[in-house]
């Protein structure tokens, strides 16, 4: 069976990361399976983890009393779920729920944050990767907002 360090080294999100860092980050990760409907995290929970989706699909959702749940994005194979563990107030802003059986690597954000504080080279590399995910998500969200298909 492959160890977590090996799994992540093959993954685009961690590509080009020196082996020693893959091992280090792998040390904060564990493989998990979420069944359809199961929550990865809920709004307001303390944000201590993030997830690398290996197979399956996770939906990000918002809920309000008396209203249908608003599902606004899905993240599939290869995607990263959760960055609230990186920034104060370290609280999840949305619900994340598996909508099919989903295999992930779950990372302990507290453990990784500690390692990043100790080794700023590692911290820089991690933040750079998350910044890339965030900027993509922002572009995608903008496109989603402008109603691009209504503008043909």
């Amino acid at each position: 069976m492959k160890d977590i360090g090996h799994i992540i080294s093959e993954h685009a999100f961690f590509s080009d990361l020196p082996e020693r860092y893959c091992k280090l980050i792998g040390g904060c990760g564990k493989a998990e399976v979420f069944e359809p409907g199961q929550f990865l995290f809920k709004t307001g929970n303390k944000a201590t983890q993030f997830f690398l989706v290996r197979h399956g699909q996770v939906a990000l959702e918002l809920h309000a009393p008396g209203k249908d749940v608003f599902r606004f994005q899905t993240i599939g194979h290869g995607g990263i779920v959760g960055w609230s563990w990186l920034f104060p107030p370290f609280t999840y802003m949305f619900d994340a729920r598996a909508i099919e059986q989903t295999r992930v690597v779950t990372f302990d954000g507290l453990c990784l944050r500690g390692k990043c504080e100790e080794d700023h080279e590692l911290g820089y590399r991690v933040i750079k990767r998350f910044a890339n995910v965030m900027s993509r998500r922002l572009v995608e969200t903008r496109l989603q907002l402008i109603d691009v298909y209504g503008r043909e």
Partner: protein
Amino acid sequence: MSTELLMPQPWVVQKTERENEDVVTLTLAPESSDHGFSFLPGQFNMLYAFGVGESAISISGDATTNGSMVHTIRDVGAVTHALSAAHVGDVIGIRGPYGSEWPIASHTGRDILVVAGGIGLAPLRPVVYHIIENRHKYKDVAVLYGSREPKDLLFRAELESWKDHNIQVEATVDNATPGWTRHIGVVTTLIRRAKVEPRGAAAFVCGPEIMMRFTASELTGRGMNPDDVFISMERNMKCAVGLCGRCQLGPEFICKDGPVFPWPRMSPVMTIREL
């Protein structure tokens, strides 16, 4: 230039299918059987709603089916409204086919990505038909399709049936409504979920210009050769034969040089605000 090129021929509506709230597919047959026709995937006709006017509409049917012509029309204004309201037995004027084709036949032996947004799936459907009819000639194939809401998706039942031909079909919407259990997000997010690796593959992309721009950028960013990305442009046009200049974009006439272009020929002009 022969005047025949500019002369609409009468075609009779054989069948109408409502795809969604504002999109209809018409199947037409020539009124007189003496003019045969053929077309290539990606080409369009000028459809004339008598007494209203003319619009460029891509052919959305199978290029190998003789005797009928299929068009999928979105009701956005006077002409498309009149065309969408046509009934079986009504006569519509058609001239064409015009324009360049999707170069699918010259991309055998390759992985293929078909990326569509909104009504953009209509001009790409003949590409999918071509692939299905020649499935053994292509390697991995994925159709990635984005629309605003689930109810806007075109050819829904047919999309599912393409999977039977070893084609990955993924649909995504910007706004999910209750009951939608598939992807949510813009169509570019499907590219990283496709089983087709962009490097070495060819892509056929059609949809709103903004969507095509971001799709091309995502594909080339993931290693696809820009020359292997093809897009179809829809700019207002009038004569459709390169005479009037209405659809001129930089050095190109969309009607006769396009509508299908390799991405590098369009990318410089697509980012100029004034064009």
